[in-house]
């Protein structure tokens, strides 16, 4: 078979194109714009003649009655208002429906709500739920996309009679389906004038209202009812005027009788009154050591918090082991960790502890823990040794001894016998006074031996030679010449 290279561009095909064009042109000439119409115009007469017609259908095929050409500065909406003069007046008044819709911008035109060519008896007003700026008429549909049963919301759900009238009972009916008990209580608390408080966005329902933005509900506040805080509120303004300070609701719960002011949250949280966390460090009496674990009422008797004394004895008078001997400033020696961990500064007293006194237990000197009137003279604690044999009388121990050790002791007084007579330097007392200071012996050093001394003196005819210094007052051998002996 011969192939048609032009395909559908056959003579009959081209003829069909021409006939179709002629047909369209002919109908257009004979019937005007009707052939372009996607559907019949609204034909129900309103009884009022506007623009010379009683209904849109009466405009016939005159498309230009409503439609304006692309090059025409007049818009289609302006064509509407040319006839609908009352609506044009409404647009200037925000109190009217049309005025409210245009109040926040002129981005709407008539066609968004009023569509034509949908049939002679079709409703001219059919707003799209998604695009209609319902918030401009005082109620946003942001939270109302679905019915209680999950199906999409429609205009007639709330506007049962006409789009211009709102059936408030719709709110209650639908929300009772969602939560009957809640609605029962809510209506009892706040009444049925839903729109007085709810505007769709600023809804106080659990689904949409974010209470945390104005007053976060935590702890036991979550358990309370709305009316618990918003008692007698009847308008959105009433709800918003609800005070947020604690005492507004809890003044009767204040166990402190206002002693701590009105900022309960400074110490308490919403979980439990008892779970308070008072920051005592911010007071004049920070809690440290064992004070941290003490129950409040131990110091704040009868829960009186103001005027609580801060001096130690106010609480610890019975704990004073010193019977007041050290006054009332316990903290001068003690800390809050432990009574026993005291740090008394003895250097500030008339008897600074030095040497071996530093390691002595307090009660060694302060017998029976008597701290006042403790004598400071040495003999009060240190009995004079027999070695002294009261040879030093009223001389103070410290004149010879230090607190570091009894020995060596110094001797700064005239000694009847030269201490360095043998040029051997200062020797200890015990060299010459081995038993007591009243006695002496010369045999502790030198070459003096009793037998040799006795023989030597007896050879000289000296029999009384026991008291060496009586003949040798400075220890020199020659100074006894001429004293005693048989040859004299």
């Amino acid at each position, binding site marked *: *078979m011969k*192939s*048609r*290279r032009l*395909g*559908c561009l*056959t003579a*009959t*095909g*081209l*003829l*069909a*194109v021409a*006939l*179709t*064009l002629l047909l*369209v042109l002919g*109908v257009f000439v004979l019937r005007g714009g*009707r*052939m*372009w*119409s*996607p*559907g*019949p115009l609204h034909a129900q007469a309103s009884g009022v003649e506007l623009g010379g017609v009683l209904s849109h259908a009466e405009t016939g095929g005159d*498309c230009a009655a409503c*439609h*304006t*050409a*692309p090059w025409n500065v007049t*818009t*289609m909406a302006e064509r509407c208002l040319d006839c609908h003069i009352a609506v044009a007046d409404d647009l200037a008044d925000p109190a009217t429906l049309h005025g409210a819709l245009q109040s926040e911008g002129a981005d709407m035109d008539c066609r968004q709500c009023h569509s034509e060519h949908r049939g002679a008896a079709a409703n001219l007003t059919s707003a799209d739920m998604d695009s209609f700026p319902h918030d401009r008429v005082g109620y946003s549909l942001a939270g109302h996309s679905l019915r209680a049963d999950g199906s*999409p919301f*429609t205009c007639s759900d709330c506007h049962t009679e006409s789009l211009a009238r709102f059936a408030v009972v719709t709110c209650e009916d639908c929300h009772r389906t969602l939560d009957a008990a809640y609605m029962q209580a809510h209506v009892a608390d706040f009444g049925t004038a839903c729109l007085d408080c709810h505007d769709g966005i600023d809804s106080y329902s659990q689904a949409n209202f974010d209470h945390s933005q104005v007053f976060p509900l935590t702890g036991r506040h979550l358990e309370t009812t709305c009316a618990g805080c918003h008692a007698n509120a009847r308008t959105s303004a009433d709800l918003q005027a609800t005070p947020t300070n604690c005492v507004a609701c809890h003044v009767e719960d204040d166990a402190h009788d206002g002693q701590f002011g009105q900022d309960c949250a400074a110490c308490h949280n919403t979980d439990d009154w008892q779970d308070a966390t008072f920051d005592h460090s911010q007071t004049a009496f920070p809690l440290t050591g064992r004070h941290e674990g003490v129950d409040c009422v131990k110091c704040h008797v009868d829960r009186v918090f103001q005027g609580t004394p801060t001096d130690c004895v106010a609480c610890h008078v019975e704990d004073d082991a010193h019977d007041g001997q050290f006054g009332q400033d316990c903290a001068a020696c003690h800390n809050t960790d432990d009574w026993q961990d005291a740090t008394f500064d003895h250097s500030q007293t008339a008897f600074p502890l030095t040497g071996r006194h530093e390691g002595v237990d307090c009660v060694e000197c302060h017998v029976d823990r008597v701290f006042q009137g403790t004598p400071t003279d040495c003999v009060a604690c240190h009995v004079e040794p027999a070695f002294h044999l009261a040879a030093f009388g009223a001389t103070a121990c410290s004149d010879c001894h230090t607190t570091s050790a009894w020995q060596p002791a110094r001797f700064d007084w005239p000694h009847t016998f030269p201490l360095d007579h043998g040029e051997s330097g200062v020797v200890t007392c015990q060299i010459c006074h081995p038993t007591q200071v009243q006695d002496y012996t010369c045999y502790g050093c030198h070459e003096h031996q009793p037998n040799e001394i006795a023989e030597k003196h007896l050879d000289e005819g000296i029999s009384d030679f026991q008291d060496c210094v009586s003949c040798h007052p400075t220890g020199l051998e020659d100074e006894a010449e001429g004293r005693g002996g048989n040859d004299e």
Partner: protein
Amino acid sequence: MKPNARELWWALAAIVVITVIYLLAARQLQGVPAASGLFGHGIGVLGFVLMLATETLYSLRKRSRLARWGRPASWLRFHIFTGLVGPYMVLLHSSWKFNGLAGLVMLITVVVVISGFIGRYIYTAVPRNADGLMLEAADVQVEIAAAEADLRQALAGQPAAVQALAAQLAAPSPATAGPAMLVLGRPLLRWRQRQQWRSALRQLDPTARARARQMEALVARRQALQRQAASLASARRLLGVWHSVHIPLGMALFTAAFIHIIAAIYFATLLH
């Protein structure tokens, strides 16, 4: 499923899927999707693109010396698929309103689709090779000769009654079926020949009948080829007539559709 009807089943499946999507959209929009809405416009534009593909691609493949991709038979299947699915989407786009020019476009669309079904029926009456190219009369005669040779081989050694039966059931005589009947009345002819075969079988004894049944497929093949040979000229003539009607209808449809599109753009988009 017959291999040559695969595109019909694919089209049916696509139509079912599109219908489900349409119903979901209608549920979401709480009503019939408007032709001017996003969904309505979308389905209309897509349907028209498919119709445009129907009109152009198969025709281009058949005639172009450059575009040689794919077998013509496959493109014909695509042509039939888009020729059914595209108009269906345009039908949904109409939102079931058939006013003015849009209604006229829809009406011509329905006519073109029906015409397409008729064309396909005539098309299947013309014998073709595996690539879908039409066979000439000589080619058909060669196939008939081959079929008869196969039949003769199978009849060798068969009872005389069976051989007589095979000879009896040859091509229908022009006296019993005119040329148009041979093309348009194929199912009726097939039914009549099947009845004749069964009637003849009943006159045979059981042994001969059993053997004759083994010959049934070969006899039927020869009969079909004989029918095609007898109707070849008529089928081609009818196909030509159909083309001369179908193509102008298609051209009228696309002319009206383009005017509708221009008008829709003008009135719905450009006007303000």
